[in-house]
């Protein structure tokens, strides 16, 4: 059996081990599968574990290495995908009952790129249904728990991705970020997560929630892990008409380049009332640290930030209502049994198949787009969205990157915010502006609360400014050791913060 300690393992180390023949991809895969089997029943981060498929991929890598054939740069690295990425021949549900049993006939572009790079896909990760949520409590398959404290949520919607990475149940994962769904769970689980520039990473094969806001991106333990994954998944895709035809940057190199001379913008709007004091202190300490690393800290203003949440919920609900119209019981997924009319097929399939949050957003979005109200709602939201973009454009004439907290609060307890959707929506207050503007942003750990919950630091760059974001994140990480902390493995029935630092 594998004598590999995979807790906290780095992607580059694993890939180097497999490529050099020192590590067997199969052993690595078995080690992760064992760990998933042992730990995940407490976390519920996986919706589907594809042991057989993973072993096949791993064996193929080992065979190629043994035969001296070329293998990909990430040969044998075990990764997992949020269940929003379609996987050929493997059930893909978006954690929704309405897609139960749906076996896609094709793979996502990013999934194909990861496979071509030699990664081994372990399985599909839990999420808020259709990526709608900030706590991963909106999953039809049960909530995910935060590896740092089983009583707390991991954030959402990519809660399974963040929790699995934090608990070393995969070396890296992909998630999607529509209003913060990569960065907020990354912050709440103490890992690194990047939402790239809109169009930088292909959306082909990513089940749509809000098309103009959906950003696929990587989550990993370290900045280098995330930069490594970004270099594989980024780049133009002829199957996505919104993908940007620009060459991919040198993200790993940028992460080592330092911040000397960079101007870091600090927007006052992100440090206002409602912020947890521990988070305020940790983020300000991080900014000081970056100053000591050679960055120049400058104040900037993003005045339309206060409209971002309202704008976001107009745009995303409108697009969601549209994107979710296809789930009608006719072609795939769930179909209500014993229906007697077309009307009943629709109403019962959708009524029984969708959870509360998708229903809420379908109703809001349908309202937003109804005839005669387009200008007042969606049209108006597009105008404000432009203002939010202009805010960033102006700020980036004064600075190279913007640094803010990722979330105003640390992980909250399961059930704490489910009663009030508006409170839940406000959890996204610091993350929604970047997807509205389409600019890249990354969250990384910059400390822990006294109770042992991670705190997230967000770095936002200009369009296609992933490299500058990685410079800031890499420089900060190199001067701190938060990223080296690991949550202790959860114990059954524990509801107290697992919190231990190892």
């Amino acid at each position, binding site marked *: 059996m594998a004598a590999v300690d995979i807790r906290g393992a780095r992607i580059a180390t694993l890939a180097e081990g497999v490529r050099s023949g020192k590590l067997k991809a199969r052993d690595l895969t078995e080690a992760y599968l064992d760990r998933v089997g042992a730990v995940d029943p407490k976390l519920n981060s996986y919706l589907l574990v594809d042991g057989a498929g993973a072993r096949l991929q791993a064996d193929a890598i080992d065979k190629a290495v043994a035969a001296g054939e070329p293998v990909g740069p990430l040969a044998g690295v075990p990764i997992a995908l949020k269940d929003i990425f379609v996987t050929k021949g493997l059930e893909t549900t978006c954690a929704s009952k309405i897609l139960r049993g*749906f076996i896609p006939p094709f793979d996502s572009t990013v999934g194909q790129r990861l496979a071509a790079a030699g990664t081994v896909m372990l399985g599909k990760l839990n999420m808020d249904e259709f990526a709608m949520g900030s706590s991963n409590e909106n999953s039809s398959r049960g909530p995910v728990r935060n590896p740092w404290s089983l009583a707390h949520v991991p954030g959402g919607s990519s809660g399974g991705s963040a929790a699995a990475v934090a608990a070393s149940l995969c070396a890296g994962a992909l998630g999607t970020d529509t209003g913060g769904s990569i960065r907020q769970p990354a912050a709440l689980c103490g890992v690194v997560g990047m939402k790239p520039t809109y169009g930088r990473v292909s959306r082909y094969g990513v089940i749509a929630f809000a098309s103009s806001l959906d950003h696929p991106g990587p989550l990993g333990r370290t900045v280098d892990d995330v930069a490594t994954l970004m270099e594989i998944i980024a780049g133009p895709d002829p199957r996505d008409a919104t993908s940007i035809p620009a060459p991919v940057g040198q993200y790993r190199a940028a992460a080592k380049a330092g911040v000397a001379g960079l101007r870091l913008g600090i927007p006052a709007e992100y440090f206002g009332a409602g912020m947890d004091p521990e988070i305020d202190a940790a983020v300000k300490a991080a900014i000081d640290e970056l100053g000591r690393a050679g960055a120049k800290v400058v104040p900037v203003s993003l005045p339309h930030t206060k409209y971002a949440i309202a704008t976001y919920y107009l745009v995303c609900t409108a697009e969601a209502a*549209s994107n979710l119209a296809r789930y*009608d019981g006719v072609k795939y997924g769930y179909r209500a049994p014993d229906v007697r009319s077309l009307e009943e097929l629709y109403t019962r399939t959708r009524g029984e198949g969708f959870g509360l949050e998708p229903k809420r957003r379908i109703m809001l979005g349908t309202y937003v787009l109804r005839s005669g109200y387009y200008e007042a709602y969606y049209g108006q939201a597009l105008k404000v969205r432009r203002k939010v973009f202009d805010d960033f454009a102006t700020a980036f004439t004064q600075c190279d990157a913007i640094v803010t907290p990722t979330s105003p609060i640390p992980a909250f307890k399961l059930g704490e915010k489910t009663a009030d959707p508006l409170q839940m929506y406000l959890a996204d207050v610091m993350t929604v502006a970047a997807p509205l503007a389409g600019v890249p942003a990354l969250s990384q750990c910059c400390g822990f609360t006294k109770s042992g919950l991670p705190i997230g630091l967000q770095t936002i760059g200009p369009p296609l400014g992933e490299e500058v974001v990685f410079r800031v994140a890499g420089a900060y990480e190199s001067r701190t050791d938060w990223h080296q902390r690991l949550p202790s493995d959860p114990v059954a029935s524990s509801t107290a913060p697992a919190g231990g630092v190892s």
Partner: protein
Amino acid sequence: MSEPQIETSAADARLAKYEIVIGLEVHAQLSTQSKIFSWSSAAFGAEPNGATDPICLGMPGTLPVLNEAAVLAAVRLGLAVGSHIRPRCRFARKHYFYPDLPKGFQISQFDEPICEGGTVRFRVRGEQKSVRLERIHMEEDAGKNLHAAAGVSFVDYNRAGVPLCEIVSKPDVRSAEEAAEYLRALRTLVRYLGVCDGNMEEGSMRCDANVSIRLRGAEKYGTRTEIKNMNSFKNVRDAIEYEVRRQATLVDRGERVVQETRLWDASRGVTASMRSKEQAHDYRYFPEPDLPPLALSEEYLAKARASLPALPEDRFERYTAEGLSAQDASVLVTEREIADYFDATVAAGVTAKVTANVTPNVTPKKAANWVINEVLARVDDPRRLAEADLPVSAAGLAELIGLVESGTLSGKLGKDVFLRMWNERRSAGDIVAAEGLAQVSDTGSIEEACKRVIAAHPDELARYRGGEKKLLGFFVGAVMKETGGKANPKGANEILRRLLDQAN
């Protein structure tokens, strides 16, 4: 809802006081190889769901990518009717639920269509008519529901994602007949451009009509109804005629026309209410976020413009100016293949004339006669005229016409030769040379034949010289017989007259 009884004949007389106002929405399937946003075949006739892919099925995770061939087809159609082609247009989502609509929305265009304005020109009973267009926009077709037994339905998505142009006219059409002629003109046009096969029965061209009536001289339009489900020119005519009478009957009685969508029932010959204005869909249009706006450069448009063929109405004007009857010109322009063949025949005649330095003999009028009466009569589908293996090419026909017009072949022999060309795939020159069919114009040999004939018929000669001049015809016939039909009748005529009268 009770329908008024339509008193047809009485209503006809009463119709005179109303002006009929019709606007037409025509959906033309674009003849591209693949679908508008994906790679599966857009061809008609595959087994159910045999021409689909994850994108046209609207599978989760799929994204549309615009087919450039569909854009070019729409642009060429727009240019052909003189539309303004927007330098930047956008796609929009149009939402409604129906099993044949895979995504629950149709990708269409809304506030920024690819073509705006334009005019379709055509003739109604010889009179020029033009109908202005509101717009032409691009969209994807839906699939088809197939209702098997009671309670069992299937969906065939082969048609889902086939590119469509929706051609929306202004309310410029004034009768059912005009509507049918407008449709015919559009059909001819899209076939000229090769952007659509115009087959109404197979549904590659479909038409909805917005119909209203108003008292002549009134400024305000009457309440309109939208008529759907008309899948032939005859249906369009019949349905509109019915609907106009139905509306007139209502108005005559002081009742109101209800704004609604009505379905034409061809078997019963009536339109019936499908859904009222209140039941109308709210399509909740918004810009398609998966497709960036489409930008078309001046250079692109110039290239597209250069690719346009000579258009039917332009050709009609040219042909009539060249002396063709309106009747012949109409026949020639119905299909681009006929007009092209005709033009090529005339052109080949001109080339032959220049190279052989003979007098012009293939006039447009002569060529039209041959094309219409001989060539068209022998093909089941006029589009065969474009086929390379057509038995008689345009150049071949021009050669034959030249032989007839120059007197080498008599008109009757010409037709025989044409038939042999068609059946045996030989050129006119070949047949004439091999069979010795050329008319004898050599006066010496004709004179010899005439002398033999005169010598052989002394009685007739005496009667002719006695004043029975009509016997000239007899002698001409005898000479033709003597020469096996090859003598140039005109030459034989002159020589006979000279010989018969000379000795007098």
